[in-house]
């Protein structure tokens, strides 16, 4: 089953990829609200409109005061976004790759996320951090990590990792108008695979998962580019007669407990799959919550699949082994289904 047939288009749609959807969201948000700003390395058209072209056209349309290329200074980028946000603007700051957020961690974790709380609600930091990551392109140990758990563990910042172009558009529109800091992770493949996007796709609320396919034997929860892998496994499992309910989490923190718990209760089995490391990964939090809440109602322990405890490797052979592949998902799902 392809992703296209899953989304029965009830409205007029247009084919676009994630990159185009984000660009459309930024265009729309900037046009509708003069307080929306964009900043980051190479993001203006003079510098090519972003490393993969997500921000192309924005500076030409809105000027380089609102769409500012920056030096390679991640602390300065996030600091400027924080100050501008507290000064009444809604900045969208790009940190080119998720590994580079490490350079700006003090600004993100100690300041953006905490200023509202530490000031007793006087400070508001309505900003979005855009960042790209994901293994699969042999970019090795410092250009491909999924570090969302770092941010999920930090109170005061929301974490969004979309899969479909429609979700990119809708979640960006919501994140830009959200009163709190939001980090949106763009995983490589999600930017380049075209899918149907409703014309006039509006905001999609943060914190809401999407039940992509209904099923009754097992629930599989995933997000970001790992959803492509999950959907391949879903097709094979369906052919093998396993009825799988697939949930795209979309927002990782705060996550949609209600939808996941309802589904796990219904199917009695849950498998969480993510590209991030399995150790202390988001899957651990989801598994613990589901087991705490549904103990006695589950037919099998909650399964978790994620990257092994090592850095992202370079060699294609190792990278393929590092990433969760459809056969592992199929085997784990069948193991859980066979348990009871």
């Amino acid at each position: 089953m392809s992703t296209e047939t899953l989304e029965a288009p009830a409205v007029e749609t247009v084919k676009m990829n994630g990159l185009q959807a984000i660009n459309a969201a930024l265009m729309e948000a900037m046009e509708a609200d003069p307080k929306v700003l964009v900043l980051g390395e190479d993001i203006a058209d003079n510098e090519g409109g972003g490393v993969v072209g997500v921000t192309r056209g924005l500076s030409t349309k809105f000027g380089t005061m609102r769409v500012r290329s920056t030096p390679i200074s991640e602390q300065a980028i996030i600091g400027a976004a924080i100050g501008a946000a507290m000064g009444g603007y809604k900045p969208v700051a790009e940190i080119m790759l998720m590994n580079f957020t490490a350079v700006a961690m003090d600004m993100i974790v100690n300041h953006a996320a905490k200023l509202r709380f530490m000031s007793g609600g006087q400070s508001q930091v309505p900003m979005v951090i855009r960042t790209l990551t994901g293994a699969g392109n042999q970019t090795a140990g410092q250009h491909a990590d999924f570090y969302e758990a770092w941010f999920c563990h930090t109170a005061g910042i929301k974490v969004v990792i979309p899969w479909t172009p429609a979700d990119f558009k809708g979640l960006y529109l919501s994140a830009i108008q959200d009163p709190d800091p939001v980090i949106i992770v763009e995983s490589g493949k999600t930017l380049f695979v075209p899918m149907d996007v409703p014309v006039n796709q509006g905001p999609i609320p943060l914190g809401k998962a999407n039940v992509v396919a209904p099923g009754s034997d097992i629930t599989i929860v995933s997000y970001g580019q790992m959803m492509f892998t999950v959907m391949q496994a879903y097709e094979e499992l369906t052919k093998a007669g396993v009825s799988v309910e697939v949930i795209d989490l979309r927002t990782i923190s705060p996550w949609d407990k209600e939808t996941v718990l309802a589904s796990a209760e219904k199917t009695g089995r849950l498998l969480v799959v993510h590209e991030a490391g399995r150790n202390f990964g988001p899957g651990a939090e989801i598994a613990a919550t589901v087991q705490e809440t549904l103990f006695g109602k589950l037919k099998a322990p909650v399964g978790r699949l994620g990257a092994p405890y090592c850095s992202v490797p370079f060699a294609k052979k190792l990278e393929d082994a590092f990433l969760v592949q459809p056969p592992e998902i199929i085997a784990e799902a069948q193991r859980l289904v066979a348990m009871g």
Partner: protein
Amino acid sequence: MSQTLENRASPDAKTQLDIYRRMIRIERNDDATRTQIRRGRITAPYYSARGQECIPSAISVLLNNDDKICTIYRGIHDMVAKDMPLRPLWAEICGRVDGTCKGKGGPMHLTHPETGVMVTTGIVGSSMPIANGFGWAALLDGTKQVTVAYFGDGASNIGAFHEALNLASVWKLPVIFVCQNNGFAEHTRYENGTSVDQISKRAIGYGMPGYTVDGNDPADVYAHAHAAIERARAGEGPTLLECKTFRFMGHVFGDADGYMTKEEKAAAIAKDPLPIYRQKLIDDGIATAAQLDALTAKIEAEVNDAIEFAMACEYPSDDELRRDVFAEEIPA
């Protein structure tokens, strides 16, 4: 050498008196804070700025209420100089719900946007990148507003300083970077941790004016801050001001000062800017001793009122743990 300022503005008599008022307000407030901690009436980490009163006082007389400051954990003097009201300040230091941050920030994170106290950070160097954002907002708004980023000499060795100064210069932001160089980065002597003899020299590398001034001399601080603020308001960009001073009470309350000699500390205290400036105002006929005593008494009354107000306030309810994490309260 640091740059030399050609046209030096001088504070008039009224402004000099206002600088003194702010200095004595800082000193009386600091003295009361240490007294209350010693008596066990408050428990809080406290980084006294005793000895550094002149710097934010001579700068704040040049700032409007809506001009902003971003400061650091040793920053209560910067806030008091900016005329932050003392009642919410004290209630916050005491961890009470009527504190400016509802008791959730404490002395290291005091915030009071109404008087322009935007960010107080406990992380060395982090006031600077955020100050840039306020500068960018002011440019977009088309106002003449300026932002002062306060930090210590130790912070000039952290990456955030270098990233922030470079960006501020490239973007010509209306930000004044004020280094309060008290000679010690926590316990490390300036020369053991800093590659240049004057921090202002680092301004050259970022294409902005840099001045080293006597941070204990109100006229010197005023003249250079005046030039820096005028430059920022005119859209010409940032300035780095290094104000040399000394902290009399060590790094943190309870610090035994084992890393400095008794002689150098005594020599610094002998140059205490407060009595020197008081005498100057009297000698220059700007105020009489009686007038200055009356001013001190008035400020002491304000401080005492704030302390008793704060002590009578309630502690925050535990529900506050679920509030202000996000705009929307986290359900119980």
